[in-house]
């Protein structure tokens, strides 16, 4: 089946095609999105405008969704995708360039030592099994003796955990670790396959759930932003599954306009949400 020419197999002719065109605008966009790892939606829009300005200032800026779909049609054959997601804690829309073919952990494999990878796996398992979606530093470090590969001291393990934070696989809050939103985007498939029994899923959007609220009666879980949307302007929130009264505080739906106008830092906002279960 060698061919020195490109011929279209007959079964493919005549089917609908979607043409994606890459220009320097798209290329620069990809470079910068990759460099940043993960970006919030308003940053992505700024990035897009910037790329147009630098590489094709006379063109009209394409609608973001179309722009991204265009790029994704080109990336498809490389098993890469610009994926859109939502942060679990406050519902901010985020975008990241993710690897589809191999899992991100095996991509990490190419640059982390065996014991470092195993540390990540252990932390991941603790996070998935936990009630809150967080694993304490102490609990992770206590597993250091069980790691495969070269022996790792606790002090070293602390460094490795920081490395994971730097590389945006984990996020640290008050000595506890959870998955970075980018890691969730990249690894959802892997996690659901590897831990099919332990994994939690949101009752509303059916995606992987690490942090969220749960019904105290029937146990179903929902992401905080899913709770916000589902119970929006509902004075008597009830569990969608068992109809019992929903006991937790309902967060606000994320509003990008309000956020930008106020310009208030997260630390100044009155805490409306907490990790409740």
């Amino acid at each position: 089946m060698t061919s020195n020419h490109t011929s279209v197999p007959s079964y493919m002719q005549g089917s609908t095609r979607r043409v994606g065109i890459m220009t320097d605008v798209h290329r620069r966009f990809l470079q910068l999105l990759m460099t940043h790892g993960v970006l919030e939606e308003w940053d992505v829009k700024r990035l897009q405008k910037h790329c147009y300005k630098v590489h094709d200032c006379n063109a009209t800026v394409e609608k973001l969704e179309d722009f991204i779909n265009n790029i994704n049609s080109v990336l498809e054959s490389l098993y890469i995708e610009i994926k859109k997601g939502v942060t679990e804690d406050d519902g901010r829309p985020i975008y990241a360039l993710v690897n589809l073919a191999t899992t991100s952990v095996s991509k990490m494999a190419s640059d982390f030592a065996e014991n470092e990878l195993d540390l990540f796996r252990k932390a991941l398992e603790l996070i998935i099994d936990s009630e809150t979606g967080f694993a304490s530093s102490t609990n992770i470090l206590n597993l250091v003796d069980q790691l495969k590969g070269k022996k790792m001291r606790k002090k070293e393990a602390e460094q490795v955990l920081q490395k994971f934070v730097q590389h945006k696989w984990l996020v640290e809050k008050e000595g506890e670790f959870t998955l970075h939103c980018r890691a969730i985007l990249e690894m959802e498939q892997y996690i659901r396959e590897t831990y099919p029994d332990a994994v939690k899923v949101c009752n509303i959007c059916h995606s992987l759930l690490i942090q969220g609220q749960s019904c105290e009666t029937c146990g179903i879980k929902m992401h905080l932003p899913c709770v916000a949307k589902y119970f929006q302007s509902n004075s008597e929130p009830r569990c969608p599954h068992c109809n019992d009264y929903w006991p937790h505080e309902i967060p606000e739906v994320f509003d990008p306009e309000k956020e930008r106008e106020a310009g208030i830092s997260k630390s100044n906002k009155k805490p409306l949400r907490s990790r409740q279960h």
Partner: protein
Amino acid sequence: MPRGKKSKLRAHEKSHQAQEEPENLVGVQATEGVREEFRSSSSLPLKSLPAAGSYSNPQGPQRATSTATTTAAVSYTRSNEGAKDQVEERPRSSQAQPITEPFHRGPLDEKVVTLVHYLLYKYKMKEPITKADMLRKVIQMHRNHFHQILKRASEHLELVFGLDMKEVDPNRHIYILVNKLEGSYDGRLSDDRGVPKTGLLMTVLGVIFTKGNCATEEQVWQTLNVIGLYEGRKHFIFGEPRKLITKDLVKENYLEYRQVPNSDPACYEFLWGPRAHAETSKMKVLEFLAKVHNTVPSAFPFWYEEALRDEEERARARAAATAHTAATASAHSSAMARAHSRAMDGACSRAMASSSSHL
């Protein structure tokens, strides 16, 4: 996709592969379609994902669907050169139907894709790429086709990402990815102005660190000579190295270059500049050095200890900075807020780092 079908396809592909491997070497082009099922190489410790057909995630309210459900044909446009047509086609039916005809994809195609992923990862990490690493981690058993695989991967990188593979050290086969798009060297959102210099800068910072945080000019040149950079000899990427390290990088505050006190005849030494302290760390530089020597930072216990102490100090400084700015946040709300917002802008976190280093 029903399990039975998948394994049938796999078996079919395997038998095809046995016959076709030698032929693939000749005719394989970047234009051949890539098959839906993708197997990861056997050495990776974790399971790979099943057929991409099972990828269509349930359409929750938060997901933007970006998968093509019909056959996608793609063309690239190079804005500088004439239009070059590259058509990549994939048989892809909607609703995850099984592939009607195994559009054959050889093992080399998989390696090309894996190599592209690996190179992009290195680009993101701003790390140099060695031939040895590529062979060991990606190419593996297909060593004889290294150049072919690398060439195809480079083509993808060039056409899709506007990145060029440049061989920085022909003796030790070290490469870097360089942004080849014109007019991309601008201020704010550009994060990789330093990409061509980064390997060089890290090398010099490494010399300085390992010589006790201060290195003589002679010591720096000794190391640079090893990687093929010589005083007065223009390099195709870095230009003239002496100007680069004694002027350009000094001007950008990455290095400090000063006369050794009381030296006669005058001789000079290098130290880390404030921007180096802000944008990188001893630990990061040690990691870079370790990588180049194919080992891990803890293999250099003396420097590792020093780097650990540096990390602790930085953590303390960061904690103090957060406390300080939280107290003044109410007074300077908008200015501080921008610095502590959850924006993931790299430039923003650099600004934070440099302000905290001044405490």
